């Protein structure tokens, strides 16, 4: 069942010089009880995609398309109706937990505020639920910690508290934007395990954003590969990471050194830098760095087509090879 | 072709600062007022209709003279004019009072010949920007006169020369002391830093007023007025560098651990050159803001000292000294125009604060980071 269905989402920013098209018509869906992973490098638009679902984009952003949540278009809702959904039905986990918590209030006060706003329950009940949630995410001495300030929490603990806060109102969808970037590997492992466990036990739907292919292969069921506001490839995690079709995904996967990478060989790398949005021309957005570019790529932007069941790729070269194969078969 | 496009896109730091600064209406207003005030002080003697030291014993405690276009007969004059003034003894209080003589009309002219003075200290002239005939039976006293009959408008304008420059000069000296001590203290650190910091704290913990008083006592009363002026500037900057030095030390400390400083050290660069090439250029913008924001303090300090009779002395003048005319309630109620120089102090101080605030926004580091 589709919980979230995003159709032809476009996000552009007005700047002093021009209008930048940061998300260029992407569509995706999140099913009940599923983790959808979004991977992409800096500037690919991961954060603004999630902010657009929460309707939290800054004033200079223009959004079009549809964001259907339980078949209701979030973009049509009034600010008041959106308030009912934001933080209650859809919640978010940020990369920087310190910016999500106000340093002047105790963790408990901030939990209470959220619970009170959405559920209007009594004080004792609020505390009981908050402490229970803190315990669930593995914070020791949760009762004591409830009355502490954010700075009294360690890095790993504050990240857990952030997760607890996001889960407090039993949301249907949780959006996690790079929740473990910057954490130590051992703590990252703890947090990932925790998120996965909670997601499984409560059959939560989740959008998990990261630039780390290792993390995404551990967490996600399906993934989207985003590059400069376009989906280049999407499908089951295994298909996309272990038999990628798009030259970008292929490059990305093979450029990561792993423990088994030989010390003597050269690492595979994608040439060039990610261009900035203002440098983008028509045609495929990966054109400038692509190893398999053709004439058509410069002119026309490719659209997603299915290479195997549920596995979509947007690449002219892949499409051409496919057609050749098909013709051969005929 | 591509290159030109790229260079066009990149706005220099300076352009960015100007753009942000111009967004602040208060900053612009403050800036314009300051420019006007400084132009005014530069051409003070020319602008003022009378010499600021000339006594007009016939017109003591004269209230501001109103300016008219239409005379008592309802006739319109192209040049604005003032009425003549006659002295009369009040039959009840026996006090001398001024009555307006509506029969005498003195038009205000531009570039009139009046009392002679030295223009910009270069040559002697007697041309004033505006005024009435020196032979008139009356005065053009826009802000009234004091107990010696000196024109307070002229005195205020000339007083600005002291008040508006004392802050600038004072800050310039504090700036140099503050940068040297602050940067060294921050960069060298250790015991040197500890001693300097304690010294600054001791200096800062003294109440400033008694300290000014004590220091200004050292200035011998026999000194000529220009010496006194520089004496005051010295006193102000000797006490004013501490705040700046602290700020600079703090910023130097935060710069010291920056990686590009470490890289310079690994290149074998000397400490002094690191401070000059790497630390100071990067903190200069903040220092300028802090300096701008400390000028008002200096202006107020000079005013306070002069008000208390410990600063600028007659016959020189400054806003603080002029304000001392209004030292008692009685004096204020009888001669409310004595408060006008106070308004100038307030306007100048506020303008500096506005400009400083706008500069701070313009230099805001976060605006830099965000492309």
């Amino acid at each position, binding site marked *: 069942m589709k919980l979230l269905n995003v159709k032809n989402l476009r996000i552009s920013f007005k700047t002093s010089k021009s209008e930048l098209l940061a998300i260029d018509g992407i569509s995706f869906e999140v099913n009940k009880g599923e983790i959808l992973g979004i991977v992409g490098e800096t500037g690919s638009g991961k954060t603004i995609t999630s902010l657009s679902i929460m309707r939290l984009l800054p004033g200079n952003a223009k959004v079009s398309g549809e964001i259907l949540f339980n078949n209701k278009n979030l973009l049509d809702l009034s600010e008041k109706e959106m308030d009912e959904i934001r933080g209650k039905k859809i919640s978010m986990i940020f990369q920087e937990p310190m910016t999500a918590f106000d340093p002047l209030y105790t963790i408990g006060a901030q939990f209470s505020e959220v619970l009170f706003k959405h559920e209007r329950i009594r004080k004792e009940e609020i505390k009981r639920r908050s402490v229970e949630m803190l315990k669930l995410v593995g914070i020791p001495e949760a009762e004591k910690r409830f009355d502490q300030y954010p700075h009294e929490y360690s890095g790993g603990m504050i990240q857990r508290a952030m997760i607890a806060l996001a889960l407090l109102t039993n949301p249907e969808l949780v959006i996690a934007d790079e929740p473990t970037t910057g954490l130590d590997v051992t703590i990252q492992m703890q947090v990932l395990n925790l998120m996965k466990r909670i997601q499984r036990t409560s059959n939560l739907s989740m959008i998990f954003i990261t630039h780390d292919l290792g993390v995404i292969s551990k967490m996600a069921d399906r993934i989207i590969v985003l590059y400069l506001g376009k989906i280049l490839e999407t499908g089951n995690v295994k298909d996309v*990471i272990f038999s990628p079709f798009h030259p970008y995904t292929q490059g990305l996967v093979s450029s990561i*050194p792993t*423990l088994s990478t030989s010390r003597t060989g050269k690492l595979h790398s994608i040439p060039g830098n990610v261009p900035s949005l203002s440098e983008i021309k028509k045609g495929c957005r990966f054109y400038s760095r692509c190893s398999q570019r053709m004439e058509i790529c410069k002119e026309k932007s490719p659209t997603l087509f299915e290479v195997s069941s549920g596995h979509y790729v947007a690449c002219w070269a892949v499409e051409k090879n496919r057609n050749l194969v098909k013709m051969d078969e005929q | 072709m591509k290159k030109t496009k790229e260079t066009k896109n990149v706005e220099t730091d300076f352009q960015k600062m100007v753009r942000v600064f111009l967004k602040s209406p208060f900053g612009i207003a403050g800036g314009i007022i300051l420019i006007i005030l400084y132009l005014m002080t530069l051409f003070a003697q020319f602008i003022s209709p009378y010499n600021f030291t000339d006594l007009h014993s016939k017109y003591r405690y004269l209230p501001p003279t109103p300016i008219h276009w239409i005379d008592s007969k309802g006739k319109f004059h192209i040049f604005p004019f003032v009425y003549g003034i006659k002295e009369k003894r009040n039959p009840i209080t026996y006090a001398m009072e001024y009555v307006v003589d509506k029969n005498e009309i003195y038009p205000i002219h531009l570039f009139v010949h009046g009392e002679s003075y030295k223009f910009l200290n270069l040559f002697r002239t007697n041309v004033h920007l505006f005024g009435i005939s020196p032979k008139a039976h009356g005065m053009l006293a826009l802000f009234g006169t004091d107990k010696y009959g000196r024109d307070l408008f002229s005195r205020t304008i000339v007083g600005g020369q002291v008040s508006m420059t004392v802050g600038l000069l004072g800050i310039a000296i504090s700036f140099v002391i503050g940068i040297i001590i602050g940067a060294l203290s921050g960069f060298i650190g250790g015991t040197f830093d500890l001693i300097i910091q304690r010294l600054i704290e001791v200096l800062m913990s003294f109440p400033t007023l008694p300290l000014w008083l004590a220091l200004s006592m050292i200035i011998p009363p026999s000194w000529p007025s220009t010496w006194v002026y520089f004496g005051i500037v010295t006193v102000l900057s000797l006490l004013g560098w501490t705040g700046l030095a602290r700020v600079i030390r703090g910023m130097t400390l935060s710069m010291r651990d920056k990686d590009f400083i470490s890289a310079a050290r690994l290149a074998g660069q000397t400490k002094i050159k690191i401070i000059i090439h790497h630390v100071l250029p990067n903190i200069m913008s903040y220092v300028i803001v802090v300096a701008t924001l400390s000028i008002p303090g200096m202006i107020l300090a000079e005013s306070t000292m002069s008000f208390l009779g410990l600063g600028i002395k007659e016959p020189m003048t400054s806003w603080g000294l002029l304000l001392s005319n209004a030292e008692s309630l009685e004096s204020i109620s009888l001669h409310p125009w004595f408060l006008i120089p106070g308004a100038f102090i307030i306007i100048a101080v506020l303008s500096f604060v506005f400009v400083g605030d706008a500069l701070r926004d313009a230099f805001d580091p976060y605006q830099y980071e965000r492309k």
Partner: protein
Amino acid sequence: MNNEELLNIKDLKVYFPIRKGIFLQTVGYIKAVDGVDLQIKSGENLSVVGESGSGKTTLGKTIVGLIKPTGGKVAYNYNGKSFELFRSVPINVRQSVQMIFQDPFSSLNPRLKIVDTLKEALEIRKMFRTKREMIDYLGTLLEKVGLKREYLYRYPHEFSGGQRQRISIVRAISVKPKFIVLDEPTSSLDVSVQAQVINLLKELQRELNLTYFFITHNVAIAKYIGQKIAVMYLGKIVEINDSENLINSPFHPYTRLLLSAVVEPKIEHEKEIKVGGEPPSPVNVPSGCRFHTRCPFAMKICEEVEPDLVEYGGAFVACHLYSKERTKQIEKS
């Protein structure tokens, strides 16, 4: 390659005082580096891995002489003579050791054009007679790292993180160093750019005969760059071994924990790896073995006696599991 000893680090300690109160009395110490012994041979890259706060950066900065050691000694050998780099040393010795920093945004002076940043070290050394020669040399180096000559006349804010990191690399290699400390040079870069920079670093190392001290918390990159890997925990080295061996047969429980926490693109992820606890603060270092608070094999002795780094199965390990004789000795007494 030539196997002369480049660096000899003996019982190195770097403590940062914690000051409080009006007189800024020292109330305690952050023991960032707390007794490190290490030898580095010329041409043999050493990678250092460890969690945040384990003292990697502090160790690196102390080695190049940016931080004065609190205790112990870092001896740097240059043409047969031994130097301590935090003291004042001849300019050619000073410049033969360079460092590349983690944050590409703070490693270049934002007010200086690239050329002014790059020429600083060359001018101190007086390496060139004319400005032309110098500019030419710098331009060639920029091209070598995949940038353009024209970039010399631009400001740092016109470059991406990856490009800035290349400029930092040029600054470091321009003085023809022997030894470079690299502090997580790729951790802030995008995946696709990271591989380029790592390839470049490896190429330069071979071509210019450099020795790297490579700090990272990515074990895979540590292995790719370093012949050897040292694992740091709370200011101490707990295990050193050839990188292949360290990864294939880790000894120290912390090394094992670190390796098990590495997430790589894999089809089957182990269900749930038990990874307990967080590192304690370096202000209150646990007694005995500093890892015992998180160690699944902690014994009684671990709380009391700090284990030494001893040779075991080709590796150097600081763990009581591998110092049987010592254990026996202590139990007897």
